[in-house]
């Protein structure tokens, strides 16, 4: 034997969470699927950067949301499930299940950071190669930021958080497939309803209930752009609340006693904030879809 057995000192509160979050973040950052998603996302980001005709606030955000967000949701799900086979030993360690889940949630800053990077590249590109003003539709500076941040940072954070929650709660084979199908189906359904309308509370409500949406779409050949209904800032806050709820849902797995009570309280707060933000997102902003033309004129969107 080479070394004498030692024993760790009882750690300061939160220090195990910090160390564990570092471990999980490294696992996330090195996950082949995550790396492939990020690598694939780089291509459209770079090609769109100096393309004057690119969908400035529209379809571009689809790439980080799908290639980083949805892919990270699967990665987070897999990472969460990966230690399940060692569960029997994990139940006998001093670190609580909620701490392990918390570390996984904290590791979701890795894909979120990729989203931040995408947002930074996008903002720099807009600054460096400014699109014509009409290409932002009806949206001012603040709204533009909220739209882009929602499509990138919040999608890249929220999707993996949902992946962690699903990894903790789902007990079925092929859970990841079901999760992806569920989320993309939800987003697509909300979008499909909106595509067939020019506004109205129901269509806006359905579209903005989903965790990913666009606020600006282009017609064929960029001859005009449609600015969609709803308030981008309140929608962003709704997304923040959804992230919070996903985290609480994940942490609630295996939580008991006081921890569970505290989590439920914070969860209730997120529900209230979320519903408020959602309501304001649906009722705020544009009431009807507005078409903006290259000469700057605005018309009510044609009925669809």
């Amino acid at each position: 034997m080479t070394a004498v057995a030692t024993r760790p000192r009882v750690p300061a509160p939160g220090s195990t969470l910090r160390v564990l979050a570092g471990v999980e973040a490294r696992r996330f950052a090195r996950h082949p699927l995550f790396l492939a998603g990020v690598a694939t996302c780089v291509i459209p980001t770079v090609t769109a950067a100096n393309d004057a005709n690119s969908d400035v606030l529209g379809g571009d955000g689809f790439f980080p949301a799908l290639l980083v967000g949805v892919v990270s949701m699967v990665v987070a799900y897999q990472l969460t499930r990966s230690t399940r086979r060692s569960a029997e030993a994990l139940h006998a360690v001093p670190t609580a299940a909620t701490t392990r889940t918390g570390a996984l949630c904290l590791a979701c800053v890795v894909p979120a950071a990729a989203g931040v990077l995408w947002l930074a590249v996008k903002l720099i590109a807009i600054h460096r190669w400014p699109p014509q003003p009409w290409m932002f539709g009806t949206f001012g500076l603040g709204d533009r930021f909220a739209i882009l941040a929602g499509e990138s940072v919040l999608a890249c954070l929220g999707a993996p958080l949902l992946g962690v929650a699903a990894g903790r709660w789902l007990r079925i084979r092929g859970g990841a497939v079901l999760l992806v199908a569920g989320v993309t189906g939800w987003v697509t359904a909300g979008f499909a309803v909106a595509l067939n309308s020019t506004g109205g509370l129901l269509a806006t409500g359905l579209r903005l209930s989903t965790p990913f949406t666009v606020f600006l779409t282009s017609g064929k050949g960029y001859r005009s752009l449609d600015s969609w209904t709803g308030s981008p800032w309140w929608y962003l806050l709704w997304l923040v609340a959804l992230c919070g709820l996903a985290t609480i849902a994940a942490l609630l797995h295996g939580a008991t006693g006081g921890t569970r009570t505290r989590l439920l309280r914070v969860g209730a707060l997120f529900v209230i904030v979320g519903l408020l933000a959602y309501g304001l997102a649906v009722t705020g902003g544009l009431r009807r879809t507005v078409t903006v033309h290259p000469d700057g004129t605005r018309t009510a969107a044609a009925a669809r």
Partner: protein
Amino acid sequence: MIRPTVELIGVGKRFGGTAALDGVDLALTPGITGLLGPNGAGKTTLLRILATVLAADEGVVRLLDHDLATPQDRTAVRRRLGYLPQELGFPRGFSAFRFVDYMAVLKEWGSAPARHAEVRRVLEQVDLATLATKRISTLSGGQRRRVALAQALLGAPDLLVLDEPTTGLDPEQRVALRRVLAETARAATLVLATHQTEDVAALCDRVIVLSGGHVQFDGRVAQLVAAATGRVWLADAPDPAAQASWRTGSGRYRNVGKAAPSAAEVVDPTLEDAYLLLRGATTSDSIEVPA
């Protein structure tokens, strides 16, 4: 008298209609205790309770001076506990080092240099130093078992709960493990369940035999073996009066029964003989050992 480190009073555990444990009383002190018993006797259930993984339905469980009533109590016990489950899976893609390091983080080693040194120490104890960076999925069954053992040894626990630690290990590794366990048990309470009576004979001061969720025997190994003196004999044929008999490598039959016939060649009993006698095995389940 030394205060017991493990104390169970009237402990019961049911799974649906099955009473896995029923009125188990135990008091253990530092040293190695072997747990024997047939399949389904309740050994794993008992060890899971000692490892704080499972809560008893009834009775009192005190471990290392804590009852397990509050989460704080359980955490305090877990800080001084090592547990090897009967079956342990590993996260896909992990190497032995990474897995044991992951467990070390969960066992509250914060500082990476100290943690890594401890991980290397336990991997060396189970003779896996050279295989530490190999993926666990590419290791042999016995090597995987040693990875599982390594995580239990982290931090020299005061209470070490091992469920069939030697399963799958080759003879050399088993002997090496006995050395490690004997050393660990100088300052710790070690409970191990096994079907290998020779491990119990070689390692344990004390043996507990469980049967149908009850303690059938609790005492010193020598005591149990002594009870079989004069009740094991060799003969050229299986003795119908024996409780168990089997053909040995020499071609002769080893008989274990209530009493050896007067002219029989009586031999020294082993713990296995004593265990079989205790279990009241019959000739109908005699074991054939090929020559």
